[in-house]
């Protein structure tokens, strides 16, 4: 009797500890569509999609940090920018030295005294660059996370400080015209680790590189979400003090999530540079940093695939609307923030179970209860939608 009881528990439990089957089907479908997309898209659109995928890397990290951890960072642009600028510096230096060049990026001779600043020099080395891209942002995130979370300051304070950090970072980049390109940023790259960037075959390979990185990030983040770390993170979000009294340091848990999100954002920024061919302060300032959150919120901040899907949708919408109807797009973007956050805190993902229930009711099929039960545990309810759980 006891044996069968625990077997039942174990079986049920396995369903909780991992994304549901429908999530995996959706994941496979997404991977398939993105893998086949280059067959039907022209070169320009392949580049665009790769760019959107780079943005979605930031969203994936935010899904864990904000959705599961309840930590609202308004400063992911800092990490996107760090990864991007480190990569861009390396590519500038490599381009300038290629084919017997002077070794000095063109804009430096244009605006400055024609000397490469000392802090650029390490990034001549590809190895240093590839190490710095993950390490530097993780250190920055760790420093801010440790300083803020250890002192148990309010969650809102962290959001404000992360925003101040990104504002200061953008100002720094704009101010240092001769060494960072100022508000023009860094652009006009020709090569990427020895490959010619405007070669169509290389462009396609770059797309697949980006896609593989996104899929790996999704898998890793999904596993983290459903791992014991993910469960503790959720517990910290909901009842931080109880977690502390069980012997955890909630600050370390939150810092770890922040560092992880910074890592993903930095890789996103680093891949963004060869894909988009430019990085400038306008890609990483206060406003773009908050816009990253819109896709996450839209797709479902605490779900497995919501952040990446939402982020892609927002990017596509922005791309097709913002140049044709700039004014309309601004209103739409503002309205989306209000409507999604206020009325749909769980994102579009929370609509799925209710649509499923509604369809069952319409078709009159039995077994509706079991279905809603599964989705209840599968899509972890929202932090903020505390009203959902009755006391």
């Amino acid at each position, binding site marked *: 009797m006891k044996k069968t*009881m*625990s077997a039942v*528990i*174990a079986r*049920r*439990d*396995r369903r*909780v*500890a*991992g994304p549901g089957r429908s999530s995996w089907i959706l994941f496979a479908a997404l991977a398939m569509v993105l893998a086949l997309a280059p067959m039907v898209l022209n070169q320009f659109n392949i580049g665009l999609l790769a760019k959107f995928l780079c943005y979605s890397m930031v969203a994936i990290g935010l899904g864990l940090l904000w959705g599961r951890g309840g930590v609202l960072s308004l400063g992911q642009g800092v990490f996107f920018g760090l990864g991007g600028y480190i990569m861009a510096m390396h590519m500038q230096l490599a381009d300038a030295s290629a084919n017997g060049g002077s070794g000095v990026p063109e804009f430096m001779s244009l605006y400055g005294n024609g000397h490469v600043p000392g802090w650029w020099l390490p990034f001549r080395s590809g190895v240093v660059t590839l190490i710095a891209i993950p390490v530097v942002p993780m250190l920055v995130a760790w420093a801010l996370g440790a300083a803020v979370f250890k002192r148990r300051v309010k969650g809102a304070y962290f959001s404000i400080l992360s925003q101040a950090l990104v504002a200061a970072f953008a100002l720094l980049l704009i101010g240092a015209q001769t060494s960072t390109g100022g508000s023009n940023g860094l652009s006009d790259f020709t090569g990427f680790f020895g490959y010619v960037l405007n070669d169509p075959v290389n462009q396609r390979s770059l797309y697949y590189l980006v896609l593989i990185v996104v899929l790996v990030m999704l898998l890793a983040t999904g*596993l*983290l979400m*459903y*791992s*014991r*770390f993910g*469960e*503790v993170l*959720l*517990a910290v979000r*909901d*009842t931080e*003090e*109880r*977690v*502390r*009294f*069980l*012997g*955890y*340091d909630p600050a*370390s848990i939150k810092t770890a999530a922040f560092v992880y999100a910074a890592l993903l954002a930095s890789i996103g920024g680093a891949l963004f540079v060869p894909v988009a061919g430019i990085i400038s302060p306008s890609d990483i300032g206060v406003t773009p940093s908050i816009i990253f959150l819109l896709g996450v919120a839209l797709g479902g901040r605490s779900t497995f695939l919501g952040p990446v899907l939402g982020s892609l949708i927002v990017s596509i919408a922005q791309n097709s609307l913002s140049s044709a109807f700039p004014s309309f797009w601004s209103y739409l973007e503002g309205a989306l923030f209000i409507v999604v956050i206020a009325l749909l805190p769980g994102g579009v993902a929370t609509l799925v179970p209710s649509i499923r229930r509604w369809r069952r009711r319409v078709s009159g099929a039995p077994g509706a209860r079991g279905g809603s039960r599964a989705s*209840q*545990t599968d899509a*972890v*309810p929202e932090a903020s939608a505390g009203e959902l*759980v*009755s*006391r």
Partner: protein
Amino acid sequence: MTKIAAMEEGQDLAVRVKGLTVAFGAFHAIDDVDLEVGGNHLHFLIGPNGAGKTTLIDAITGLVPYTGTISVGGRALARMTVQDIARFGVGRTFQTATVFERQTVVQNLDIALRGGRHWASLLTLRREVPERIEEILEIIGLAGHADELAGVLSHGQKQWLEIGMVLAANARVILLDEPVAGMTLDEREATGELLRRICPDRVVMVVEHDMDFMRRFADAVTVMSRGQVLVEGSVEQIQANQQVQDTYLGVAEAV
């Protein structure tokens, strides 16, 4: 992260409080209290509102600053953080049961189980319910609710789950803040039995207002009033004590 070794099996567990004072500004919530609580029995801490009972638990678990000394098993707890004290083996529950409402009972217990472990153990997926958690589910009587969200449990079940979490965290000193408040008679009985079951080789201290519950289950009692220890002893000794009668009578008249 400093490593705090948890207490060992069979170690002296006694909680010793000496000259403890907790001040909130000019108000002394606890005023120069000495107290010793040993293992293997149910120790009750009673007293009228504002006697300093909860504050005493807060001080032991590192939540409020104090002067004086508190030691567990011979180790002073001052200067230790809340989480280090928990890792050392001191667990507590709260007046309103505090569980992770949006996670299942098993998830709640599993989080507690891993509190003092190496961080790398957090990077694993739970493939099955750990044996220790099944044991605890039996002890706290929630085996049939293993997969339910903690938020939908009844008030009493949440209290039991919280006690289970403290057990899962391998606490050797367990401090319970009004565990039976708001429970039905049957639930009180079950809670008392539960506390009896867990008290061997542990220190279990219960802050309680419910005098019937205290009379029924207490092995030893400390009465506090206005931040000081009024009297200590067995249930019979306490009931016979004139001071205690006055204190409670006084409260009863004031109400």
